[in-house]
């Protein structure tokens, strides 16, 4: 287990990260950007989890009859990372929904265009408190 196949899991991880980051930067649609971000974050799971695997080992739930367990620590870290990922996605979508309400589009080019023509528009015309 060395050479190319010994590092195959890593190579796929790298590919997924590159693809995720590319979708995130290259696309102008905010939803597509969020999906790219999500792929990028998800690919990091493999960077942690794959090295924790030992061939012939079992999941780290102690039981009689097993002696070798895969490494539990990366699992714990990635559980946290998954939660962070979904929290970010939820917030990102919420902001995207508000952007659609305020601008009528979620295409970045069109949003910037509308910013130039109307730079001072309120986020939510009705929401601003009255000035005393």
């Amino acid at each position: 287990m060395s050479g190319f196949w010994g590092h195959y899991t890593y190579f796929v991880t790298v590919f997924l990260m590159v693809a995720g980051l590319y979708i995130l930067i290259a696309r102008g649609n905010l939803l597509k950007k969020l999906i790219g971000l999500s792929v990028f974050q998800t690919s990091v799971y493999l960077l942690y989890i794959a090295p924790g695997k030992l061939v012939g080992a079992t999941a780290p739930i102690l039981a009689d009859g097993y002696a070798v367990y895969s490494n539990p620590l990366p699992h714990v870290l990635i559980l946290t990372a998954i939660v962070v990922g979904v929290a970010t996605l939820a917030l990102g979508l919420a902001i995207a929904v508000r952007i659609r309400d305020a601008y009528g589009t979620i295409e970045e080019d069109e949003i910037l265009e509308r910013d130039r023509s109307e730079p001072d528009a309120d986020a939510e015309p009705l929401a601003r408190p009255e000035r005393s």
Partner: protein
Amino acid sequence: METLIVNVLLTGLAVVVVAMALQRNLFGVVVLSGIYSFLMATALVALDAVDVAMTEAAVGAGVSTVLLLGALHLFSSMEAKPLHRPLLPLVIALGMGAVLAYGILGLPSFSDPQAPIHVHVAPVYLSSVMRETGVPNVVTAVLASYRGYDTLGETVVVFTAGAGVIALLRRRKRLKEKDK
């Protein structure tokens, strides 16, 4: 055999991501991202990360897909054509890939029992978890006790997202009409 299963699943992930990048119908992209999460969860099972797999299936394939579909319902479902040639993003992404590739070449091989992560810290969890906490699921023990503070932080992250979404999406009442 185990290694083969893992490698096949990972290759599947790569294929799905390519399809995702090419697809311009956002509904299709969301469906593909659900498939991606399911494949990821399966790969995680093959990598012995059952807790993570269960969470990824519930969160990645479940919650995220539902959230994306819910949001998509409010948006137009076609992505606009990109206006410019995406050369710079490609350069940035490939540059990152090059640094990553450089780094991973020095990492221990897949399933090397002498890798640092298998000889430091983690063996302590595996050997003393029953004596110290009496919890056989080592992931639960580390999550809730040894590194319980991370999990407090993680719960706060969820809380932040929840409170943040309330702050952003709470329906506005027709403001102040009766006050005027």
